[in-house]
């Protein structure tokens, strides 16, 4: 359980964030400068809020009213920084063990051998941080934070400095940690892609305020440009279950309460839960049920929200069962089709537009 209530002023910027969440991975989402880092810094104890309280798993780490302010070295909060911050004078092994050596033996519950195996660090142990690639550094930083035996792990934009293949690799490692170690993770990012892939619960921070808290599917679908960056690209998140694997065409059928999605083969077993993330630009709309087309996914639904972006595109949200699918179409199509609220439409999703990284 992560219970945060912090208030702080930075010149004209006022931070007042309050939320209480309990999830394996909490996503702290918002645009740059929204106050996300200030929140995690307060949790870690490296920045002191003017007022508020921070309680992690029942332990009160900060409380301005009770004058509690546990110093960072006694909080046992793991912190993975955006640029790793490995100690340049120590090799990887000594970096990894820095925190473990400071933790009393009785409090240790994560062994170094396990972390080294889990994060694939064996070949790096004798190297110096300066000789590591960005992805390797970040893996070592994660291992180092975990070996300090933390109550929770904070990750502040851990992928921001990495290229796309490295991002995917590190995300896979983080999912492995979630599944094997059971340490709650607070994952900070301004990327809706990352957040919706990794987080179970999302906390949205905008202009120093917490604007919404909820499960990933609900929050992601309710997001709009006001709480995110200008170039925000909407993504629909749908929690599904695998119902069929088609070996011949290498396709997987995913079921959710609004229907079924046929997608390129997802590497998982039938009945496994899969979270599909569909970019609005990959979704088209049709008024009648189209025939004689190549698109495999035709999902009937009702228009619930229309958002004019100001550019040439319009984002139309369609309720498909309990799920919401957002389509980004041109202003011209929008007008030619005469789309309006509560209109009955078909959302079309090209199967091949979905790639492996759209599923988690």
């Amino acid at each position, binding site marked *: 359980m992560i219970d945060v209530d912090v208030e702080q002023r930075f010149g004209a910027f006022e931070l007042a964030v309050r939320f209480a969440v309990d999830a394996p991975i909490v996503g702290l989402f918002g645009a740059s400068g929204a106050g996300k880092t200030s929140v995690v810094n307060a949790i870690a104890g*490296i920045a002191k809020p003017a007022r508020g309280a921070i309680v992690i798993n029942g332990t009160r780490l900060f409380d301005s009213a009770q004058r509690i302010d546990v*110093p960072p070295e006694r909080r046992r909060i793991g*912190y993975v920084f955006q*640029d790793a911050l490995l*100690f340049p004078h120590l090799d990887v092994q000594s970096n990894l063990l820095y925190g473990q050596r400071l933790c009393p033996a009785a409090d240790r519950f994560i062994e170094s051998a396990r972390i080294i195996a889990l994060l694939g660090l064996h070949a790096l142990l004798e190297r110096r941080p300066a000789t590591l690639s960005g992805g390797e550094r970040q893996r070592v930083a994660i291992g180092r934070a975990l070996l300090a035996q933390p109550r929770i792990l904070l990750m502040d934009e851990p992928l921001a400095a990495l290229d796309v293949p490295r991002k995917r690799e590190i995300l896979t490692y983080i999912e492995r940690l979630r599944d094997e170690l059971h340490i709650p993770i607070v994952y900070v990012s301004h990327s809706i892609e990352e957040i919706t892939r990794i987080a179970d619960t999302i906390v949205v921070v905008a202009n120093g305020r917490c604007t919404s808290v909820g499960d990933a599917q609900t929050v992601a679908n309710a997001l709009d440009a006001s709480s995110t960056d200008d170039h925000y690209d909407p993504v629909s998140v749908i929690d599904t279950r695998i119902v069929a694997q088609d070996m011949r065409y290498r396709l997987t059928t995913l079921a959710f309460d609004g229907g079924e999605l046929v997608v390129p083969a997802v590497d998982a077993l039938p009945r496994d839960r899969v979270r599909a993330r569909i970019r609005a630009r990959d979704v088209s709309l049709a008024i009648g049920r189209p025939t004689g087309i190549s698109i495999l996914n035709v999902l009937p639904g009702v228009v619930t929200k229309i958002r004019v972006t100001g550019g040439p595109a319009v984002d139309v949200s369609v309720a498909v069962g309990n799920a919401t699918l957002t389509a980004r179409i041109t202003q011209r199509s929008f007008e030619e089709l005469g789309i309006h609220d509560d209109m009955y439409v078909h959302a079309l999703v090209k199967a091949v537009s979905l790639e492996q990284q759209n599923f988690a």
Partner: protein
Amino acid sequence: MPTLTATELQIIALSLRVALVSMLCSLPLAIVVAYALARLDFPGKTLVDAIVHLPLVLPPVVVGFALLVLLGRHGPIGSILEQWFGIVFAFRWTGAALASAIMGFPLMIRAIRLSIAAIDRRLEVAARTLGGSPPWVFVSVTLPLALPGIITGSLLSFARGLGEFGATITFVSNIPGETQTLPLAIYSFTQVPGGDVPALRLSIIAVILSIVALVASEWLTRRFATVHVDDRR
């Protein structure tokens, strides 16, 4: 190979002792002061900075005279030290070491201060989140990262100690076997007829000592100090 005379050996031993002791004794204080100047904000910081750097700009003879006035056996500090602690600096080799330490202090401070200021402070923050108390973080992160500056500063102070002349001769005079270090001995030989050859021999020794010190510090830097590579991509 020409052999050294007993007098020359004595001069070398004394010079090394004075330079080494002055360097080692000023090092802890230099680290504390350099850290304070690099990191902390306190009232009178500019004044401390100025006082520390004074020996760099003052004529060495003035520093030596100030030491003589303050720390002489009848000086305000010197008399207290002698009465209460039995410590005497005047006309002793310890006085020569003290004069060297003061003259080398600004050089040592500058090198250490620069290397402390170059450390990414977020590394220390990271160490705190990993469970390191502030003193431990200082020992395990700050000091090792400042090591190149500490080594360079120590060498500069040591070299200053070997070469120190003005403050030493003014404060502790030129007493063979007690305060007569290499530069003082060379000076003495140049003042007597036929002293050119011994002065030249001592000068060559001074050159060799300086080169050895330089090579040793270079080796130490390579061996113990990782270059502080930026940890960002």
